[in-house]
């Protein structure tokens, strides 16, 4: 009898891979994301290891790959943990911790080593150099960070938003022209372009309906669902929506996205809402609202 010695990490990864294959397989009708360069699932940074986890890069290697490499002295790995993302994807989360117990780097990777989420801790808020980058320079810098880490750089220009002293650059994911809300590639930078974090999200998509109803039909259907005093204020827009447990309830982030007409309006008190209707049946899939 041959004894096969596997590290605890490899054992966990194999178990997670098997469970994932059994429990998280996309339904036969689900679309594999295939929207080209902007598709973060293109796994450009993955390798084709046959043993789950065998190709996951050690976090210390990733730390040295950063454009602003971490000084590794005094940093220890927490050993890593097998986790499942909100979308149900099996991942490996590993952190580098300093002597004070503070997290300096956290990386979530797929089981074939594709980086899905990365965060650096302790990045200064003010640019030590005093240099504040323009939007164009931020986009260039973000692309350089992605390239250095082996993450595919999406095509197109990212949306850039200042959030709490950081700059968030978002390349939204689209499928056949319709937005997949929350999916895509995000890079968070300090004002001087230092990397704070990145995320690559790509939800499974369900099959599009054989016949997509018109925007006009969607607006009419939405109107019938409104409470007294509510009004539609915008046009209907197609998007790939995470269906809610019950229309209005919390979204099922691990369920395949459904193609929906998104219709926004206002309740009687003026607060905004969105209703999402199945693009084929026009049945309600979800509500969203502002407070």
């Amino acid at each position, binding site marked *: 009898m041959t004894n096969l010695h596997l590290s605890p990490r490899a054992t966990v990864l194999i178990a997670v891979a098997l469970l994932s294959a059994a429990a998280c397989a996309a339904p036969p009708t689900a679309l594999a994301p295939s929207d080209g360069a902007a598709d973060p699932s293109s796994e450009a940074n993955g390798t084709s290891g046959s043993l789950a986890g065998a190709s996951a890069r050690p976090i210390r290697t990733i730390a040295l790959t950063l454009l602003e490499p971490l000084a590794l002295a005094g940093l220890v790995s927490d050993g890593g943990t097998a986790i499942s993302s*909100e979308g149900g994807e099996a991942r490996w989360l590993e952190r580098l911790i300093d002597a*004070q*117990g*503070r*997290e300096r780097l*956290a990386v979530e990777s797929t089981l074939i080593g594709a980086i899905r*989420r990365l*965060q650096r*801790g*302790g*990045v*200064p*808020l*003010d640019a030590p150099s005093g240099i504040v980058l323009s939007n164009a320079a931020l986009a260039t810098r973000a692309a350089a960070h992605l390239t250095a880490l082996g993450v595919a750089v999406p095509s197109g220009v990212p*949306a850039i*938003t200042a*959030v*709490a*002293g*950081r700059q*968030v650059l*978002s390349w*939204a994911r689209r499928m056949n022209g319709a937005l997949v*809300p*929350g*999916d895509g590639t*995000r890079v*968070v930078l300090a004002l001087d372009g230092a990397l*704070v*974090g*990145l*995320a690559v*999200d790509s939800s499974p998509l369900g099959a599009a309906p054989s016949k997509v109803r018109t925007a006009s039909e969607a607006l009419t259907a939405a109107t019938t*669902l*409104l*409470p007294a005093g*509510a009004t539609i204020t915008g046009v209907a827009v197609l998007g790939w929506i995470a269906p809610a447990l*019950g*229309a*209005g*309830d*919390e*979204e099922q*982030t691990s369920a395949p996205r459904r193609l929906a007409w998104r219709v926004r309006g206002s*309740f*009687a*008190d003026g*607060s*905004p*809402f*969105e*209703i999402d209707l199945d693009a084929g049946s026009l049945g*309600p899939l*979800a*509500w*969203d*609202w*502002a*407070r």
Partner: protein
Amino acid sequence: MFGALLSAATLAGSIAIPLLPPPQTGAAVLANVTAFNRPCVGFTSTTPQRLAATATAALRALGWDVASAVGPSFDSANSLRMIAPAGAIYVHSHGDHYVDPATGKRSSGFRVDGAMCANAPKVIAPQIVAQRGATTPIVLAVVSTCHNGERSSKLPAAFGIAMRKAAPGVSGPRSFYLGYVGISWVRAAARFERAFWREVRDGSSAGGAFERALLAGFDPIDLLPEWWGSYDLYPLAPSARGVASHD
């Protein structure tokens, strides 16, 4: 990460302090349910309860003694009574810069549930200041409403938190305030908050958890989070401090 340490702290505390918990060990969780359900809107939702439950579980994991008012029990009197001694607070409701009838000027605050669809009573900053008096600043305030992450919001000051950021590695107040700028959509807020609470439960600093949550799948068009206080704060309850490795 904190579980064993908190158990030890709880055990030690139960031996040494058998009476009432010391001040500021309490946390208040308040969530408006009525305004976000039928018949006020066109749907039924448990999202407010889920947001409150997520906050409650995280605060408890951090050692806070949590009291909650979720639904109609979240009224003006209850919320002010709960906020007065609290060391941590979570609010989910409508929020804005409302007119203070006492001065005729804009203040900031949130609406209570009060079993009302619209025009529910408001709790505004001067009321909170009057109730809290000279109480120690709140350690952690998560105000999940519209507008109360804006620079013009009076709520941070009402909780004793200056609108400054103490950067990583820089010592600052033992406080962290989280709010949203402009309109905040619930689906995005739920994603952000789940990530934030998961991270603080896992032992991240409040600032680190905030930045991790920025990577949750939401569009900044739908949610613009903001924070004030200390990036490096570990928002443990006082009873848990000194036993956890970070604080």
